[in-house]
């Protein structure tokens, strides 16, 4: 068997003997790898942040959104109705939740205080399940309360703070657009999503929308099925049902897959650009390594002569120099990965986000560094192994 341990030790010794030069040699690799790891880790972090945002808004891969109007027409016709929703509830298999959303503007009055929230929505009782937003205080209204047109309201934190300050809102009576309501629940805090304050929101039963908001036209229907593999079948059933009722395609259907695809596409494009930069950096780094290895071969001609005189074969000398080159590049990769990871963490911490270590990129960086080290190390190593021992022994630096 070929002895690989001893040439590896010899190569390691040579690198340690020239620490500074080895470090400078591999700088190109360090910079290239660090850049890739930083950007890819940040990209992965951004991706997981966006996915989380989408997920926390309740909009998972198992959800389907139906909006009124033809996708290609400019004006939005409000073509979806409460009856459509009831029909879908019966016709779509594996349906988990169906939430209708009617959007309007509300003016809230509590005693002498007045407040206009960002959104006043008429929603069905599936809202807390579909959007995964519970009531932290009090409760959400039930299906019975919705169909029974009970005047109950659930409010967001921002609304509560503006109307009630530090006091509990539960059980208080307020007026929305002049209609009296009882506050029965306070929504869990959601924070801002893409600059919208998700807590500046008031939810009333959808059946009261016409009375309070002056419209019963559904802005959006939100359906979830049990798992995402059922989404395509559900889309077919929705289309069939609505086409039967409307006789034309005056609605359009979205799934989250589209949004997820867009996010992925952007990040993949970014990764592609970064990889191209890294490839150039590694190429330049590799040439630098080859250059230094050629210098090292010349510098150590006498050492090579001595080694050959005492019995080193061509293969021994070849392995020694190739290992040296591979070790230098691999160390560069390891240093680059460390720097890149730290930098990504630093930057993302500054942006108050989490970096995700891109293990794929880490493994790839190691593999590429190995290949670069091997490729650019072979020629100098062949030159070293082919040196004539007598000439090499005579060589004076």
């Amino acid at each position, binding site marked *: 068997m070929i002895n690989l341990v001893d040439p590896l030790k010899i190569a390691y010794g040579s690198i340690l003997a020239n620490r500074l030069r080895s470090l400078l040699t591999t700088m190109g690799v360090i910079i290239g790898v660090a850049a890739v790891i930083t950007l890819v880790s940040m990209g992965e972090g951004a991706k997981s942040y966006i996915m989380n945002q989408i997920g926390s808004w309740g909009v998972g891969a198992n959800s389907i959104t139906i909006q009124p109007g033809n996708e290609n027409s400019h004006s939005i016709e409000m073509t979806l109705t409460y009856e459509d929703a009831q029909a879908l509830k019966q016709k779509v298999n594996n349906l988990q939740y169906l939430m209708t959303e009617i959007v309007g503007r509300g003016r809230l009055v509590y005693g002498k205080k007045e407040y206009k929230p960002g959104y006043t929505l008429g929603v069905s009782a599936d809202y807390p399940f579909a959007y995964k937003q519970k009531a932290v205080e009090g409760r959400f209204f039930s299906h019975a309360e919705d169909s029974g047109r009970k005047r109950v309201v659930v409010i967001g934190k921002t609304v509560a703070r503006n109307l009630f300050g530090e006091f509990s809102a539960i059980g208080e009576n307020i007026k929305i657009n002049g209609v009296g309501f009882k506050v029965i629940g306070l929504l869990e805090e959601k924070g801002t999503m893409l600059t919208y304050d998700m807590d500046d929101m008031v939810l009333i039963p959808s059946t009261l929308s016409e009375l309070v908001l002056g419209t019963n036209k559904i802005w959006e229907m939100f359906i979830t099925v049990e798992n995402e593999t059922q989404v395509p079948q559900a889309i077919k059933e929705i289309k069939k049902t609505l086409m039967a009722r409307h006789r034309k395609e005056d609605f359009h259907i979205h799934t989250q897959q589209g949004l997820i695809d867009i996010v992925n596409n952007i990040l993949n494009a970014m990764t592609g650009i970064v990889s191209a930069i890294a490839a150039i950096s590694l190429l330049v780094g590799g040439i630098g390594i080859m250059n230094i290895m050629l210098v090292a071969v010349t510098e150590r001609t006498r050492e090579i002569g001595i080694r050959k005189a005492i019995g080193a074969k061509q*293969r021994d000398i070849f392995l020694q120099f190739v290992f040296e080159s591979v070790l230098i590049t691999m160390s560069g990769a390891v240093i680059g990965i460390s720097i890149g990871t730290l930098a990504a963490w630093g930057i993302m911490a500054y942006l108050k986000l989490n970096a995700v270590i891109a293990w794929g990129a880490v493994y790839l960086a190691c593999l590429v560094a190995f290949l670069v080290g091997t490729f650019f190390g072979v020629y100098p190593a062949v030159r070293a192994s082919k040196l004539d021992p007598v000439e090499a022994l005579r060589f004076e630096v």
Partner: protein
Amino acid sequence: MSNNVVVRVTEVKRVYFMGKVEVNALRGINLKVEKGEFVSIMGPSGCGKSTLMHIVGCLDRPSSGHVHLDAVDIDELDDNSLAEIRNKKVGFVFQTFNLLPKLNAIENVELPLIYAGIGFDQRRKKAAELLEVVGLSDRLYHKPSELSGGQSQRVAIARSLANDPSIILADEPTGNLDSKSGDEIIHLFQELNSRGITLIIVTHDQEIANHSKRIVRLKDGLVVADDQVR
């Protein structure tokens, strides 16, 4: 052919080209060295002493003629086999010691054992023994820069003995040493020879040559004298 013949050189010629000029370094050398001999090769600069050493030591190949080492015809061997012969059958000692400066004494002595594929524990032990033989058991971990010329040459001799070679070839081994160190080295060679080790040394110093058993004189690439001294 006697089993005792270690080196047999037959009609060896070696031609170099320095630019377009043809240099006949060796012009038909015949030499036979038997086991246990201690031979000095003498002659003026450029007479081909070193070239002959390189050829006998399998570092170089003759342009024509034959070299047998332990009855093996070396011109039929490829480069790898020559490396193996240099490793196992030949021990080199150079004028400038040729130790690796970044390795300490014991590591330098270990080198031929590494290339012979000997494991770490075994080669450390062997290297330590050899350094004891040359009288340096208290300098195992000194780097060449921390050793005197005489000590460095002892390390080099220990290294040449590492794989129990058939022959030691020493090219001007005392050339870079003061006379006291030189004497010590030559006495070390005598001691090794008395243990049965075959030696060829190249020198232009008659004093040194007088310590050997046989003196071969070269001139212009030919053997001009071959005398048994003792």
